[in-house]
């Protein structure tokens, strides 16, 4: 499917070139440098030696209008923390069925979050990157169909984005490829002057083979507890995701908030509740902002009905499984203060400091300085 997508899009771009439809190129880039505030602190892949590749990226988008309402778009992205390997972030064919309805087929972004659509375009939002606690779903693209419908109700502009497809690209290194099938989602955005409201819902069938848990799964089946084995195995389980967000953008003040809930019941992965709220103030060509965020991950123990102390091998299964579910717990909060300076009409300079506090293990507390130069072209 991936190869088919790419070849359809590439050949469409070539056809477009031959029939002299213009190919329009746009791009964006971020060069990000970060360092933690002391040698025993690590956060989001940074440590106490300055890192210029984590978070840096470079992207080119080629788009061509091939007439009759059809257009082809491909975006190639190269990330520093991926050794600068290039990937097709998007590659789709779009059809403008009416002035209000646009249909897409191919590789697209999953509209999980308010900033999902332009997640990597740092120029388009205040932070260097959106709060990672909230923006934490393991994948952000899918292959399939999308529909975008825009309309208005009185003074409100409304936008509905629906998707259906799947994601079968390798995410976890060294493991078998996970399969996300029957991925279905809808997001609704309402906008009126300075107020934007958003709600999103996505669900998918998850199949994530994890080699390390296979002995545990087999052990529980052998001990006569197939339900517990099924809970550990991530096979045909349904994961769901809800997002609620708002933006107030009035004169010099900007306030943004997002709340998300990820539900992975039926697996030993934690359910995750996260939110952030940001307030910013614009003056001359700068924006100063402060963000407060909270992450709460939890997974209840699944060994409730199993007799303890009866059999040493059963106790071993119980302890190992409890270790997994207990280890999924996470309670953290963070504050980020930042400054964005639009020093150039197509580029901005950003500075941020994040103080991260782990409520369960203060050894994980960390401070992180980041700076970035971000641009669109």
């Amino acid at each position, binding site marked *: 499917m991936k190869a088919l997508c790419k070849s359809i899009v590439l050949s469409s771009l070539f056809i477009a070139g031959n029939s002299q439809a213009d190919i329009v190129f*746009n791009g964006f880039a971020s060069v990000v440098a970060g360092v933690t505030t002391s040698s025993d602190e690590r956060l989001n892949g940074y440590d106490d030696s300055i890192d210029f590749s984590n978070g840096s990226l470079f992207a080119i988008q080629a788009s061509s209008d091939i007439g009759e309402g059809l257009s082809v*778009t491909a*975006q190639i992205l190269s990330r520093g923390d991926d050794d600068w390997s290039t990937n097709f972030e998007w590659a789709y064919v779009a059809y403008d069925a009416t002035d209000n309805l646009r249909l897409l087929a191919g590789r697209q*972004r999953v509209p999980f979050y308010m900033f999902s*659509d332009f997640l990597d375009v740092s120029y388009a939002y205040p932070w260097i990157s959106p709060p990672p606690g909230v923006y934490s779903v393991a994948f952000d693209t899918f292959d399939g169909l999308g529909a975008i419908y825009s309309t208005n109700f009185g003074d409100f502009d409304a936008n509905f984005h629906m998707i259906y497809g799947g994601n079968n690209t390798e995410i976890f290194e060294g493991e078998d490829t996970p399969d996300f099938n029957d991925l279905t989602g809808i997001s609704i955005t309402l906008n009126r002057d300075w107020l934007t409201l958003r709600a999103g819902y996505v669900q998918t069938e998850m199949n994530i083979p994890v080699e390390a848990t296979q002995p545990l799964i087999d052990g529980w089946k052998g001990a006569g507890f197939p339900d517990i084995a099924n809970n550990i195995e991530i096979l045909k389980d349904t994961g769901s995701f809800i997002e609620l967000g708002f933006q107030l953008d009035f004169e010099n003040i900007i306030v943004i908030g997002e709340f998300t809930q990820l539900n992975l019941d039926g697996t030993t992965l934690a359910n995750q509740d996260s939110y952030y709220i940001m307030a910013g103030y614009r003056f001359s060509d700068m924006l100063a902002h402060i963000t407060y965020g909270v992450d709460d991950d939890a997974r209840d123990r699944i060994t409730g009905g199993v007799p303890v102390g009866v059999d040493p091998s059963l106790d071993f299964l119980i302890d190992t499984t409890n270790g997994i579910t207990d280890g999924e717990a996470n309670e953290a909060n963070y504050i980020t203060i930042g400054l964005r300076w*639009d020093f150039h*009409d*197509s580029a*901005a300079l950003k500075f941020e400091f994040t103080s991260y506090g782990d409520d369960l293990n203060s050894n994980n507390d960390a401070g992180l300085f980041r700076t970035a130069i971000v641009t669109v072209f």
Partner: protein
Amino acid sequence: MNIKNVKAVNRMFVAVLFTLSASVSAYAEVVIIVNPSNTATLSDKDISRIFLGKLKSFSNGDKAVAVNLKFGSETRNEFEKKVLNKSSSQIKAYWSKLVFSGKGKPPPELVSDKDVMALVASDSNVIAYIDSASVDDTVKVLKTF
């Protein structure tokens, strides 16, 4: 030169200075123009929405095609500030969101007021803005800002 002439020259000099400073301190006026055959009426909000890609037709149902001056030009900056109520960086960020999510693209750009007027005069779907000083009778002025 005798004294009378010097005084006259001084007065002229001062008058010229006043005129120069008056024209330098007067803000450029931006006018919204359409083809003379276009009978549509538009509120300020409608004009803003057309240039932000949110409204795609005139009040009479005809398709509306917005055209911009070059990014960074003075008239465009005035237009974005007065009509769209945003700085040019905010406008750039707004369009980046749409371009890089495949949801839209900004209006095409033309270099000069003359090019804009030539396009408006030849196409009844086009709506554009120019400096008020460039207006001639080949175009119809909808609003002045």
